[in-house]
């Protein structure tokens, strides 16, 4: 399989961080509507949860600040690789990379697995074009690579990243900062990722700006209706990743949306 062969059974995917590390076997029927399963973000070493409030609602959405807790790639392989191999849809492993060298440790362990659909590499928000290219080059190997770009820089970084060998780019949730009222009275600030229907107009504009440049993109951000998924696909996205709507409405949406998109 070459790095250009991103294969989905249908254009519906979950976003990284929405459905855990592997498809749960008791959910197999519900998940059969899913075109590809994206794992929670996995870092080389273990990450513990962030401190402080983790989920803050605001009008039209909510902010998540979790620290992407995960047991680290090796533990995750031990726990989940067998389920990835058994899954009825392609599994895409999302990698949370700290340094470019992390990838030279991670890639050989992943490339020897059976039947992975591909990798998604999440770049940090403060990445610049040369670092984005370096991450992409280091990730490009035997598996097709989706590079998840920081939302704020997605339109700008997409050309260089595709040029460096990404099969497609995808979009991280936008980052934002919210106020939280303290017990003491004076509010403090919390930074995190933004989810919810208010993200959709931003995401559709960003996806269209990328497809207008002729680049392959997997759309994501605030998709809460089938019409919104359809409009992103009609704008040229290869597939769409769902996030908050899965949590709101549950796994029943996969088969339901799949048949409505067919």
């Amino acid at each position, binding site marked *: 399989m070459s790095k250009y062969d991103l294969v989905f059974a249908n254009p519906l995917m*979950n976003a990284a*961080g*929405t*459905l*855990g*590390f592997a498809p*749960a076997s008791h959910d197999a029927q519900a998940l059969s509507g899913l075109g590809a399963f994206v794992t*929670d973000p996995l870092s080389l070493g273990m990450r*513990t*949860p962030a401190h402080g*409030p*983790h*989920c803050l*609602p605001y009008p*039209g*959405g*909510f902010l*998540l600040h*979790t*620290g*992407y*807790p*995960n047991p680290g790639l090796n533990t995750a392989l031990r726990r989940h690789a067998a389920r990835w191999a058994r899954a009825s849809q392609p599994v895409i492993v999302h990698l949370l990379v700290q340094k470019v060298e992390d990838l030279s440790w991670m890639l050989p362990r992943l490339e020897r697995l059976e039947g992975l659909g591909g990798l998604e590499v999440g770049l940090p928000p403060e990445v610049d074009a040369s670092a984005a290219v370096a991450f992409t080059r280091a990730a490009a190997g035997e598996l097709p690579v989706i590079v998840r770009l920081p939302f704020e820089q997605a339109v700008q970084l997409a050309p260089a990243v595709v040029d460096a060998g990404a099969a497609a780019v995808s979009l991280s949730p936008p980052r934002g900062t919210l106020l939280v009222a303290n017990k003491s009275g004076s509010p403090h600030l919390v930074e995190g990722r933004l*989810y*919810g*229907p208010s993200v959709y107009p931003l995401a559709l504009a960003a996806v269209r700006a990328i497809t207008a440049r002729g680049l392959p993109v997997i759309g994501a951000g605030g998709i*809460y*209706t089938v019409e919104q998924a359809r409009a992103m696909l009609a704008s040229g996205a290869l597939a769409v990743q769902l996030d*908050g709507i*899965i*949590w*709101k*409405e*549950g*796994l*029943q949406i996969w088969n339901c949306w799949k048949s409505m998109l067919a």
Partner: protein
Amino acid sequence: MHAYQARIGELRLDPAGQVQARLDCPPAALPAPGQYLLAYDPQDASAALATPLFAAELLADGFWAAAPLPPAWQPGLVLALRGPLGKGFALPGDVRRLALAALGGSAARLLPLAQQALRQDLSVALFTAAALPRLPSSIEINPLGMLPEALAWADFLAVDLSVEQVESLAGVLGLQGGLPPACPGQALVSAAMPCGGSGGCGACAIPVRRGWKLACQDGPVFDLRAWW
């Protein structure tokens, strides 16, 4: 995990002035004490997340859902439910004296467990600083400051607290030097649960003695031994 429909039959104010809703739903949907359901209004496209519902009172074909609830929920609304989800309270068979401790502004989420305990003829004492609804006179009400003494009286302790209060739990129980409480027990830990166990978003992480657990899947009720 199962899906149901529930109709909001009625709203009422709890003693703290917050809204509770009576949901009329099939008996199979009723959450055991400490379990939760996820609910949303299928007509409301603007809601970003489902709302976790805990029972404040169990009825034959429905339950009173504890606050907080979305302000847009009104009588007549038909909600989509899924659940019951998570691990609820499990009272060991030999419990005779049950202490309930509500550390937050409401004791509502412990009352179904009190209902169940009274049916089993246990002695029930409630320790709280929260305003209370009218309760059966067989439930003894005590201030929260008496909780350390309760650990000698009770043979099981059920606590309701928020994730922020986990760190101060030992202090509230009057424990020192890292010693465990004198009686066994469980704690219902409330945290935001955006993904409600549909997979690890990681937002509901609860610090435990060795690392952390997820409220939505591993809880929301945890054995007190998680911390000792």
